[in-house]
Structures are given as C-alpha cells and as structure tokens.
C-alpha cells in the first residue's frame, strides 16, 4: 500500500533531510505525526497528519438518543472531560426550551472551572516534561489528584463523570463538596507561587520560550485559533465573555491577554487563567445556595423540536462548539463537534517553518493539543 503521508523531496536538493516526527513520539501529547523537512537545525517544511485516534463520534452519536450521547461527549477531550459535555447540553437545552435553576448553573460553573485548573495542571506537567523538566510533572499530578477526588465524591467518576445533564446536573452535591472545594482553593493558592518559581520566572525556561514560535494577531484570527493561543497573541476572545453561558454573566473575572504571541506568552496566559479560575470559583462558592433544586424540569423522553443550534463554550483549550440538528425524533440528525485543538493544530505549518527543531517541541506543548478531541 502506498504511503500518502510523506512529503516529496525537492529534486536536486540534497541538503534537506526529511524526518517523521510521530506518531509514536513521546513529546507529541498523543498520536500526532508531523513530517518535517530539515535544513540543518531549521525546519523548512512541516506537514501535520492527524486521524490516528479517529472513532467517528459523530456517526456513532447519530444512532444514539440524546441522553446517551452525553456520555460520549466526555470522551473527546479526556483531560478536561466534564467540560466537553456542556456545549452539547446547552444546544439541546435551547432546542428543548428548558430552564436551568440558578443553583445548577453555579454548580456547573464550579465544576467547569475546577476542570480548567485540572487540565492546565496536566498541560503544565507534560509540557515541562517535553522541555526536560521532570519535577513539575510530579507536583502537578499530585495537585490534580485533589480535584479528581472532589469530582469522584460528587460526580461519580474521576475523569469522565457524565455528570451534567439537560436542565442541570445529575445529582445533588456531596455534603462536603463546598468545604472541599474551598479547602482545595486555599491549598492551590499556596502551590501556585511554587509553579511560578519553578517554571515561569525561571531564566532557564525563559531562554527556551521567549521569542519562540511567534504567532501574529491577524494570523491567529484568520486561522480560527482559540483559547490561550489566540489570547497570547493579543486578541481578547473568550467565549465566557463573548457568548456568556451558565453563571458566567454574574461573575467577575478578567481575560488575561498578552501581545507577544510566543511560547512564553502562551504559558503565561495559562498560568494567569488558573488564577482567574480560582477567583471565579471563590465568587461562585459565595453565591451558590447550599440547598435547592439542582435540575430543571425535563421531559422523560428528550425529543427536541426540529431545528438546529450551535453553542460554544470555552474549555481549557479554547472554543469548543456543538452543532446539533434535530429532526424531531429521539435521535439527532447530525451532531458536529467543533474542537479547539483541531483548529489550533492548523497553526503547525505557520509556527514550525523557520523554527529550530528543538523549538518545535516547545511550540507543540504550548499549543496543548489533546488527540481524543482532535480526531474525535
């Protein structure tokens, strides 16, 4: 069988070396293959290939009822599992016309931001592992474990909980939940300075990251980048502000942006986002009623009226959208998941070409792709 995934050498040119990076390369965060043309240390061409983890969620979901689909959406971005349920649920809620009680919205928001911290901790650990630092990996996973324990106590699973549902959440929170979350925030705030000291403020890291992989503002918008990638290029685009959902309209928070657009800026934005998440959860904890309804009135058989709806949320990696087309039956006509890493990975040719090969790894970890979601 022919192999269509290679790039052809330029005739007459002998100094260009063509190498395959991936799909088994440990620093690609999954199964990404990039075919790279090298001129010495410099990358001359880069062609990314994805699809090694493709499961065709969208076809499977056409044969499932709306309630069943929620447990599939978890499995797209498994690092921030719970966040992936929300755009689909919001779209179906719009089509159903379901009211969500304010307490359920706040609980959802707390979980949503907890998973943002958890996801950024995984990114920080594995990203630094790519750059050769092993210690942050051990520390971040230890901190993330606390979030997963809180999640397991209430939602029923650590990574893929299937906890959000139409009209709210599945079950009321565990009695310790608010106490646990407050304790975690206090604990996490003592840890953040350590991460700043180990990573962001370290001149060793800065030498590796400043000025590497610069992405211009115009290119970021045109390429459809989202999340920390676009905000590090100076575009304050955040779905939480642009199209607020759940309890975000009532909460006050900033969108950290930075103008440089290099690897350092993308790291910096994610660090600041963790701080903002702590702020958001603290406000939500103050506002959330301790008791009350956690689920709105939903018909037992979910049958949205015919129509189509696109809803988006800001997960840890960026703009995650779900386009739900209903034909009035129990099964959806079409569901499209617009995943942020899929769009962000299109930047690989823009960012890689001209960079040094060692910097390619740094650039890739600053994009933070998760392949469950790229390949769906």
């Amino acid at each position, binding site marked *: 069988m022919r192999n269509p995934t290679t790039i052809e050498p330029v005739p007459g040119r002998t100094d260009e070396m063509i190498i395959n990076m991936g799909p088994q390369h440990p620093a690609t965060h999954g199964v990404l293959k990039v075919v790279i043309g090298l001129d010495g240390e410099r990358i001359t061409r880069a062609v990314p290939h994805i699809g090694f983890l493709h499961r065709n969620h969208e076809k499977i979901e056409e044969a499932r009822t709306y309630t069943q689909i929620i447990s599939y959406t978890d499995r797209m971005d498994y690092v921030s599992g719970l966040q992936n349920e929300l755009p689909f649920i919001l779209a179906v809620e719009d089509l159903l016309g379901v009211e969500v009680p304010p307490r359920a919205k706040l609980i959802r928001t707390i979980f949503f931001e907890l998973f943002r911290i958890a996801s950024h901790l995984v990114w920080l650990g594995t990203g630094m592992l790519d750059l050769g630092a092993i210690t942050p990996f051990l520390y971040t996973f230890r901190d993330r474990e606390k979030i997963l324990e809180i999640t397991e106590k209430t939602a029923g699973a650590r990574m893929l909980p299937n906890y959000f549902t139409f009209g709210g959440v599945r079950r009321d929170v565990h009695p310790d939940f608010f106490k646990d979350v407050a304790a975690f925030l206090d604990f996490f705030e003592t840890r953040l300075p350590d991460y700043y000291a180990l990573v962001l403020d370290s001149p060793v890291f800065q030498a590796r990251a400043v000025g590497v992989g610069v992405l211009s503002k115009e290119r970021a918008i045109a390429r*459809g980048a989202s999340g920390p990638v676009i905000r590090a290029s100076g575009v304050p685009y955040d779905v939480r502000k642009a199209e607020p959902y759940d309890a975000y309209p009532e909460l006050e928070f900033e969108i950290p942006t930075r103008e440089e657009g290099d690897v350092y800026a993308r790291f910096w934005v994610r660090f600041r986002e963790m701080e903002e998440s702590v702020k958001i959860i603290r406000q939500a904890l103050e506002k959330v009623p301790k008791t009350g309804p956690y689920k709105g009135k939903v018909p037992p058989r979910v049958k949205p009226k015919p129509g189509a709806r696109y809803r988006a949320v800001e997960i840890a990696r960026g703009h995650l959208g779900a386009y739900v087309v209903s034909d009035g039956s129990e099964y959806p006509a079409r569901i499209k998941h617009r995943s942020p890493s899929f769009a962000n990975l299109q930047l690989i040719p823009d960012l890689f070409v001209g960079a040094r090969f060692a910097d390619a790894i740094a650039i890739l970890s600053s994009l933070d792709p998760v392949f469950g979601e790229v390949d769906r």
Partner: protein
Amino acid sequence: MTELRYKKTTEFDEEVYAVHPEDYRALLEALKAEGFDYPRSLTGMDTGYGLRVVVHLYGIESGKKATVFTDVPYDDPVVPSVTDLWPGLEWFEREAFDLVGIRFAGHPDLRRILLEEDWTIHPLQKRYDTGGYPLPDWQPAPWPETPPWEEPQASEEGGEA
C-alpha cells in the same frame, strides 16, 4: 447583496442565511467584508435529499454571529472553497470532504484528513450504517419543492430559457 439568492432568518441570537450554491461564495465574501472575521466552524451534513454545508461565523469586534448554509445534490456535491477568506477553515473543509463527501472547488490541499487515504466511502452519509456498510433499502428523498433559499422571482428575464 440584493441580487444574491438567499433567505435570511433569525434563530435564537444568530442570523441564518440559506443561500443558493452558486451565490454561496459571493455571500460569504460580503459577510467577510461586513466584519465576520473569525471562522467558528464548518459542518458538512447529509439532509436526506442532498448534502449541506453549514458555515458558522463570528465577528471578533462586533460580537455578531452568522450561520450560512447551502444544499447541493448528491451527484454533484461541489461548492467553492472559502479557505482564502478564512484560512482556518482549511481543515474543516477537508473534514467535510472526508466524512460527508462534499468537494470544495479551489481548496489548496483537498485530501482525506481523519480517515486513511484508501477509504472509498464517506461514512457520515445516511446511505451507510454505523459500520460503514451501505443500507440496502436506502433511497434519497426527493429534492424539496421550495428550496430553503429564495429562488429569483423574475424568471421571465431569460434565466429559464
């Protein structure tokens, strides 16, 4: 934009344009000039009587949202590519080609993206089951009498002849 064949409706908080496939690119060019600079998504889907392309756009400055869709028949599923307007839709168009089978004329690199190159079918079409096998009793629905867009009223101008 007056001579373009499209119908504009408002669903929830979005403007939805149903557009004739021949005017698809012209309408998107006009929308890009209006300030819809951020490509949110591009979806290909099977409507039962043909294939549909849905483009979701967003204006970073204005905060406005727009959805544009057009239908093409099964036997000639070609729409013009808009990757030169929004380079971010490059992979989305490849995905729509790969999974649904819509051809984008003028796309710089229209290859399969998620499936292997040696696949022969486009699995998201309704004529295949979840396993990728053709359904024996599948028949395409007839093309709708009134398409979602507005056909030009003045057919006596010579368009019909």
